[in-house]
């Protein structure tokens, strides 16, 4: 079965026009002014992994649109008893779900769900594959700070290999001709990363990545996904930690982004995290209207 229209499985198969439509719709969504576009609908939040930002902002987005939300987590549900992903999907569908928002440690889990469950499936992060709602809210944030994507240069620094945020961001920004420079050590950023999308480059040197950057996106070193990789933390800090001196290498009006959670003292210092160029909390705020737009689109309420 093909995914139900309105599903959002990833950025890869969205075209630029669809992305722009979603961003425009996000701009019309105001969390302060509830709109009953999803009145009476049931949004099932199926979270197989911990989450603070994504979960709460999907929940607030759904409620702002008048929907009910039900949160199911892997602990404290039948998932713990060994129920399969699809059986959980069929079950929440039978309970009356209208939309499933799913976060899962395995790449492709939302795709499997979308092939078998006949309601819109929203990918809220699958393994280290994609995190489309994050890419959209980041694009939204960039457009609120920059005139357009035209001529922009974006540096993404850190653990690219394990990052669904990086993959979705590259795929999205590439569709608008943005130059993307990925930066990190080979263990966390294999050379092959440059094949992700047109306009993606790989460097090991912060100076190369930052020079001329309009946007600097930092990523957390994902200790829970390293699986035996030994990262020399002092070495990582010495080479890749963002501090005020390094940030100066970027354009004067560059903005600093981070999908969170941030680890102060590791990938960035407190000075830059709390500095004038940081947009980290703005990203979190922008998550709500973006996810309102995603949910409205899922139900075909895009007027």
């Amino acid at each position, binding site marked *: 079965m093909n995914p139900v229209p309105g599903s959002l499985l990833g950025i890869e198969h969205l075209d630029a026009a669809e992305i722009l439509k979603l961003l425009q719709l996000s701009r019309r969504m105001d969390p302060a002014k509830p709109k009953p576009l999803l009145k009476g609908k049931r949004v099932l939040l199926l979270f197989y992994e911990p989450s603070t930002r994504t979960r709460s902002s999907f929940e607030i987005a759904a409620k702002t649109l008048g929907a009910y939300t039900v949160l199911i987590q892997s602990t404290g549900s039948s998932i713990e008893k060994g129920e399969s992903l699809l059986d959980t999907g069929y079950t929440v569908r039978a309970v009356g779900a209208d939309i499933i928002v799913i976060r899962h440690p*395995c790449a492709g889990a939302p795709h499997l769900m979308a092939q078998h469950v006949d309601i819109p499936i929203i990918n809220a992060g699958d393994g280290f594959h994609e995190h489309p709602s994050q890419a959209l809210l980041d694009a939204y944030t960039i457009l609120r700070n920059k005139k357009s994507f035209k001529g922009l240069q974006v540096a993404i620094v850190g653990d690219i290999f394990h990052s669904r945020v990086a993959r979705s961001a590259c795929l999205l920004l590439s569709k608008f001709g943005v130059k993307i420079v990925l930066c990190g050590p080979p263990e966390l950023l294999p050379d092959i990363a440059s094949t992700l999308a047109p306009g993606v480059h790989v460097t090991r040197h912060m100076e190369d990545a930052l020079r001329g950057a309009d946007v600097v996106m930092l990523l957390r070193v994902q200790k829970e996904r390293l699986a035996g990789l030994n990262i020399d933390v002092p070495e990582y800090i010495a080479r890749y930690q963002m501090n005020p001196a390094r940030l100066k290498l970027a354009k004067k009006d560059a903005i600093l982004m981070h999908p969170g959670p941030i680890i102060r003292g590791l990938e960035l210092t407190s000075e830059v995290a709390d500095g004038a160029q940081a947009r980290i909390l703005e990203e979190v705020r922008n998550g709500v209207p973006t996810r309102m737009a995603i949910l409205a689109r899922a139900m075909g309420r895009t007027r």
Partner: protein
Amino acid sequence: MTSAEKSRTSRIAPSLLIKGGHLIDPAARIDAPMDVLLKNGHVAEVAAPNKIKGNADRKFDARGLIVAPGFIDLHVHLREPGQTHKETIATGTAAAAAGGFTSVCTMPNTLPVVDSVEWVEWLRQPERAAVVNVFAIAAATRHSKGIALTDFRALQSAGAIAVSDDGRPILDDDIMREALTLGGELNFPVVQHAEDTRMTENCSMHAGVRSFRLGLRGMTAAAEASVVERDVQLALRVPNARLHVAHVSTADALKAVRRAKRAKARVTAEVTPHHFTLTDEDMRDYDSNFKMNPPLRSASDLEAILAAIADGTLDAIVTDHAPHATQEKQVEFERAAFGITGLETALALAVTRLHRDKRIPLARIVELFTAGPARCFDLRGRGSLVRESIADVTLFDPKKKWTFEAVKSLSKSKNTPFDGWQLTGKVVATIVAGKIVYAV
């Protein structure tokens, strides 16, 4: 002779004259129109058309068909004992017959592991209801744990034709050397699934552009090639060692095999239809029917495989038929079982991909299904239709176009990436010890 065979031949199959076909028997260097007479479970006569005198009990009209020695699959998983929800010897061999295979060699990674004489004998009991010949590959180490060798001599006497810890490769140099040494003394092939599992933990596909994009951990080509290189080095040093490299999937592993053959090591190698047909780019939407081990590799690996098929580096086409139940496959890709079924599509994929698309002669393809595998494991009396060989015959129509439908498969499991594929080349009849066990 297996007990299943004994019971079969004791029933004295009626004599059968296969008439009007085109015989391809690479071991006998025959590629010509020939009639074949089967009598008492053996080949009684092979002669030019209409030259066989006397009456046969039955005649088989083979006009338009290729008549070949019975196909031999050196690598299948029949899942017995212990995993009958995936496959049984009865269902697996029925699928084998439909795919033209008259002999299959079944891997020991079952529950329990086939590491004893008792289980080797059990596999061959008539109660298993095998439709074609089943040869046991026994475990090389106890419980396939890679620590202590099994009793090769006893296993061989009981009828096992090779040893392998398939799926749990022997990584320890000393154990592998011991296995090759003992195997060498007994003229017993050691089959290695070449994968350095220390490098492939949590990996679910080939390491490359596509695995990176999909966010899946990838198995590097080096994880395969390094083990093949190590094994080849050992095989070159250990007197009479016989190494059989299972399902080679990478260009670098093929290079090692080629080098070994040039150095006259007793090294043989096999390849699967999926590895000469698909690449890692073919998997869509996290479809776990494209998940197997070794994984689908890059386009350049596939090119290297095609070259190795043509130049003789590869000895056999095997299916690595690995049935799994739906609930074991229809899960998160990373959690899905490795393996696909393959018995019923092997010949058609070979004819379609190798012959029709790549112009590899049918005689070479037949060799890879018959004489080649028979040589790898010394299956005497098989792999050729010279007079007095065993009357195992496969008849196929090399031009027949058909569509493979997984639901119609005789295997208990339907985990195949080839569902709905339009293929050229179809098995028309399968004859085991003179008896027709499958016919369209």
